[in-house]
């Protein structure tokens, strides 16, 4: 990414940064989807940076924008851990569920997946294909059946099988549709009748612009998002909105998806993320 590499090079070399340089930096920050507000904050703070310690000062500034909350997965130490995966249409929820399941499985835990996207045509089949590929059982309901009932059945099944994790995939929904958000709340409520939901992961597409903030706000209002998965980071998008979300809403990014294979999935590393912005 190297958003600040030019800045660092210049300030170290000449100890000066002209108005035109600042304008260029502003454009670059904006072009990374950091948004006008965060861009302004960053530029104001960068103006105070001295040339000697430019790198560490900037790294400090950027680290301050990140959420201070833990990035560890929330788990239930004695028994079933339930994870719900939510997000708007087309961000890669189903793929993320499969990748997360595969990651958990390789760490030696047992997983069950609930195919809660009963709305989109063939979403259940898509998840089942993934399940077969990575060798993880998938509980599905009928097409267009109530997603809450699928989630409930899956929870019962997870308890019966005694697995460590239940991952619930949900249908993509636009966050400004109240009825669909209410449906999502219902899924969570129904599952919680028998087992607490430990983690709610919001999937955000790295190419999303400032709308990502709105998505995170409204999904949190409705189902209390505990972490974010940023997908499609393998494209050209810089996913700056993720930083904006961490700053504005204090929700930690926990995972990143970087490709099409089920192994292209990793924990979010703030240190290397920031190093990437600087170098």
């Amino acid at each position, binding site marked *: 990414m190297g958003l600040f590499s030019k800045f660092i090079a210049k300030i170290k070399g000449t100890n000066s940064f002209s108005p035109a340089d600042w304008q260029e930096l502003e454009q670059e920050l*904006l*072009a990374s989807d950091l948004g*006008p507000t965060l861009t302004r904050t960053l530029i104001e703070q960068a103006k105070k940076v001295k040339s000697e310690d430019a790198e560490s000062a900037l790294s400090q500034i950027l680290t301050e924008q990140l959420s201070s909350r833990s990035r560890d997965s929330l788990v239930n130490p004695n028994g079933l851990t339930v994870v719900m995966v939510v997000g*708007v249409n*087309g961000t890669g929820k189903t793929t993320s569920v499969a990748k997360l399941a595969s990651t958990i499985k390789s760490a030696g835990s047992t997983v069950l997946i609930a195919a809660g996207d009963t709305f989109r045509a063939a979403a259940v089949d898509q998840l089942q294909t993934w399940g077969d590929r990575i060798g993880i059982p998938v509980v599905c309901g009928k097409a267009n059946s109530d997603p809450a009932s699928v989630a409930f059945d899956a929870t019962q099944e997870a308890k019966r099988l005694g697995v460590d994790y239940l991952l619930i995939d949900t249908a993509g929904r636009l966050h*400004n549709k109240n009825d669909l958000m209410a449906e999502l709340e219902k899924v969570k409520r129904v599952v919680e009748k028998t087992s607490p939901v430990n983690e709610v992961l919001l999937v955000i*597409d790295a190419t999303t612009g400032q709308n990502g903030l709105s998505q995170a706000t409204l999904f949190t209002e409705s189902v209390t998002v505990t972490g974010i998965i940023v997908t499609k980071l*393998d494209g050209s998008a810089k996913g700056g909105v993720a930083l904006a979300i961490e700053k504005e809403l204090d929700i930690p990014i926990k995972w990143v998806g970087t490709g099409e294979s089920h192994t292209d999935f990793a924990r979010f590393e703030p240190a290397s993320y920031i190093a990437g912005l600087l170098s």
Partner: protein
Amino acid sequence: MFESLSSRFTSAFGALRSRGRISNSDIETTCAEIRQALLESDVAVSVVDSFVASISEKSLAALPTLQSGTNQGQVIFEIVNAQLIEILGGSERRVRFAKKAPTVIMLAGLQGAGKTTLAGKLAKFYADQGNTPLLVASDLQRPNAVTQLQVVGDSIGVPVFAPEGGNGVGDPVKVAQAGIEFARAKQYNMVIVDTAGRLGVDEDLMKEAIRIRDAVTPDEILFVVDAMMGQDAVRTAAAFLDGVGFDGVVLTKLDGDARGGAALSIASLTKRPIMFASMGEKLGDFDIFYPDRMASRILGLGDVATLAEQAKKAFDGDTSAKLEAKFASGEDFTLEDFLEQLQAMSKMGSMSKLLSMLPGSGAMKKAIDNFDEGEIVRTTAIVQSMTPTERRDPKVLNGSRRARIALGSGRAVSDVNNLVDRFSAAQKMMKQVRNGGMPAGMPPGMPAMSAPATKGVAQKKKSKSGNPAKRAIEEAQ
């Protein structure tokens, strides 16, 4: 869609309009506000800067020529409106049909942009106009994309050509080619080729798209893009333009609260028109993109033209003619007619979407989003629980009949009473209108149904004066 952009513009112009005389610094302030609003809406920085520069230049040039007494704010507003329309592509563009059928449309775009759903919507749109589209499943990459297209095709009654199951198996180029052959042999007049989503930077997949393009020589290549996309939209669009190339843009997920800045950027930088807009989960939630209407919407002027068209589409000729005749001959408007109207209204799409097309709707966005769509369903249920006699003559509705209807529709008796009261009031009103010497037929050139249809809406609104969204419709009429 575009709502917050719209409200920002509205407030910027509100300040401008309230001034009798506009100074150069007023224009600067307005331009700065517009810049901020556009940046927050994900419009690419370079596009924002040239847009704002052009507005500022034109406004400053226009200012000295204005006489005092003219509404100067309005003049500036017109300049912005014209600039917006220009950036959005001028006038709408339709698909170019091939001289020799089939017309081939190829879809390209990023993963998750909504290509497969869009293929279905496009097919339905053209099938409804009497064309015979064929869907070709050339997305063999994403797990079960082929199945998804088949389900979509089934639900709209459009055949799907899918010789390969997908999931990474099969050659998409061969499928596309065979699809065209098949369409030619079976005389379909349109072929819509769904392709695998790809990242702009993925050269292999881009090459595959190019091979599909060369194999099927499409009449139109449509670039499908998510309206929520950020600054990367420009880079992605450029990569697709350089790679497979495209003739037009389709915006998806416009029903979200995205400000759709990507649309402005792509249209402005690639000089390719936005041809279609997709806005909802149902396969009918799709329309041609009209730059002038969209500009009106961004500027908070509403989109009455689209509203009128949708009404025309939903209220089919037969129902309209029947009702018109009824109205003219002095027959009573019955609950049966009311039911037909309710059903036609639900065909027009969600109430909140209709409301959002009204002028000034930006200001009550929240209320519109929270509109209780269930109300129409519940009212329909009550009417459907009545016998034909009751529907024709609500006077027979005594206590026990009302109790039965309430039970049948799952509502309280008070809901039934409410509906009947409102209905009688509306009926009375219609009689008065008629006796007041209103011309028997509708004037020519007007959608025949519009008068009775709005009556139906108005009547429903009456009961809910507490709901601002509904009140707005009432006031708008």
